[in-house]
């Protein structure tokens, strides 16, 4: 696997979608490294393969413009943490994966997930929560959208969502042997329960 920095460099040099609209190459490498810890590459693709850094870059000049400052202020803070941990280092992307996880854990104050959030906004409070939400979005956004995320639909593949536009039944395990609708047994009368 390419290191984050060389990946970003290579991406910045390759054809499309190559150019960053908001990040410098260095910032992009940092964001790429962070997102790759939020949704890591395992035996399946992660945020990196889904091109999440490109998604976030575009987000910050479009629908998430209001979050620019969170990134420009959050990245140096994160880098300060890196130096604190290991004075020789100045970049998150240069730290070991263990160090990276350690630093992110310290940034991830809130740990309680949950609650239905169909109308969640990207305007999360902390840097970590913002980049976490953006990473999830960039991993799982409709790959046909103009958002540059979920490249080749890899995010959907990881969660088991076929990248198709129409489906036919049977859909899943439990309906595959369904014999068709049979009327309810009529032995129970329409009494109150």
């Amino acid at each position, binding site marked *: 696997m390419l290191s984050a920095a060389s990946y970003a460099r290579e991406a910045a040099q390759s054809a499309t979608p190559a150019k960053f609209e908001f990040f410098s190459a260095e910032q992009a490498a940092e964001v790429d490294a962070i997102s790759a*810890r*939020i*949704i*890591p590459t*395992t035996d*399946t693709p*992660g945020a990196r393969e889904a091109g999440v850094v490109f998604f976030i870059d575009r987000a910050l000049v479009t*629908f998430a413009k209001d979050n620019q400052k969170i990134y420009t202020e959050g990245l140096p803070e994160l880098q300060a943490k890196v130096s604190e941990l290991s004075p020789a280092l100045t970049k998150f992307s240069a730290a070991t994966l263990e160090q990276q*996880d350690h630093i*992110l854990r310290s940034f*991830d104050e809130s740990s*309680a*997930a*949950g*609650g*239905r*959030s*169909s*109308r*969640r*906004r*990207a305007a999360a409070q902390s840097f970590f929560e913002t980049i*976490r*939400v953006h*990473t*999830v*979005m960039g*991993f*799982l*956004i*409709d790959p*046909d*959208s*103009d*958002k540059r995320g979920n490249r080749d639909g890899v*995010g959907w593949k*990881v*969660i*088991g*969502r076929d990248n198709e*536009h*129409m*489906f*036919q*039944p049977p*859909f*899943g*395990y*439990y*309906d595959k042997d*369904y014999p068709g*609708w049979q*009327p*309810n047994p*009529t032995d*129970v*009368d*329409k009494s*109150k*329960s």
Partner: protein
Amino acid sequence: MTIAQPKYKTTDEVDFVIIGSGAAGGILAKELSGNGFRVVVLEQGPYLTEKDFVHDEIKVLSQDLLTNHPEFQPTTFRKTPQDKAKPQRALVYGRIVGGTSVHFTANFWRFHEIDFIERSKVGSVPGATLSDWPITYADLEPYYTKVEWEIGVSGQAGASPFDPPRSKPYPMPPLPVKSSGVIFERAARKLGWHPFPAPMAILSQPRPGRSACINCGFCLSFGCEVGAKSSSLATAIRIAEKTGRCEIRPNSYVHRIELDANGRATGAVYFDAQRNVQRQKAKAVVVCANGAETPRLLLLSANKQFPDGLANSSGYVGKNLMLNSGGVTTAVFEEPLNDYKGFAVSRILHDFYELDPDKVGFHGGGGLDARFDMTPIGFALGNLPPGSPRWGKAFKEVLSHNFTRTCEIFGHGTSLPVENNSFSLDPDLKDAWGLPALRMTYKDHPDDLKLSAWLNARSVELLDVAGAKKMWAPPVQEQQFAVHLLGTCRMGNDPKTSVINSDHRAHDVKNLFLCDGSSLVTSGRGQPTMTIEALAFRAADRITALAKRGELPS
């Protein structure tokens, strides 16, 4: 698609100006223009069509492509009239041509007989302004049937022993069953309950110009890209436009209804897309702006004759808000359901529609549905089990495992009408047009909370029998967010305790009609849209009869 529509001048006195193009407004536009009247429909939102209905969760959900926008239309919330309301997103509704019917779940339950006569059947309920409707199920039955056949509703007549009588079967068979539906059906039958195929306003068979559902999986909260969801946009509005007498005028935000010296409405005052003020003249005004915006418009239209809001001599404009109660229980199963494919709901049950207060200790009733209505981002951010990892390898694992294996049981139940629950004008906050923002006041009747918890317990019971590997339900809490907007200009025979009569005519203004969720006297057990549309068909008949009798200005 370009459809030739008339372009009326604002100075043309058309027969009807209809405010709002959603579930009710679309049908009234179709019926009234079909009956020969000249109609202008003023819709605050844009005119989007199938090509605009993308699967981009950020555009549709985070950016409110189809819905009221909290930035331009901020709202406030408080629990009781004694509290100071705080800015908070309090409601969501469709703000596009077709209204909320474009993005809704399309659960299409009829109300049952009990919903119209509950007050006389069960007696008064302390703390509630429970009242009988001035019409009965039998009055509305022909219109329920009309809705099913005209807009296209799929379902299985006779499949539920609790169904009210119907004069005709559904026009098309139910949609295919989902894995969540099979799990639900098998478990419910083990418990002796009576699950049945959900009636859905989604086509299981194609109709002219519309495809059957292609099971794309972006259904609730999204517009249908193939016209399979039977929204007003895909149905009534298309027909209204073809009459050549109906103009749909989008981006028209009505903020005042004016009266002449004789106390008759003269038309509607609105901001056009450029925020210039326009006045559409009309012989009669029909407000179908939804259960929040309809009362707001009347309150904004206060004048010398009606200092407390137009047509508000009863003081009931905006009051008795009902949201429907209920809860969600989420479960994970061993094998993939792949419930992300298709529409949301394929099986429901109504065994608990009429609970006996003496047995359960509260008033009301409800139904359950099995569904999966989440899209990938929303799922990853909000639908993993509580306490799940939020990032890293473990997060990715639970996300990858659960997405295809999760489903939900929704409880849907009664909201009792409570006079203090309301939409009103916020005294401080303004919208982007400088108008007072909506203020929601809501505190569930205690019985509604008990009912929600009771329905959740049934969901847990069902999922347990179904062999769920994991399940969880957030504790029942007082509601602070509205989707169903009901009861705020209720129908009734007594002008002192209702805003409109059974013809949907305002008691106080003879050529002003209100028809939408605000007209409802009771909340049913969830799923109000079917009843709103049946009321709209009926209202169109009543209004046409009045006009033909010469009771409207000509």
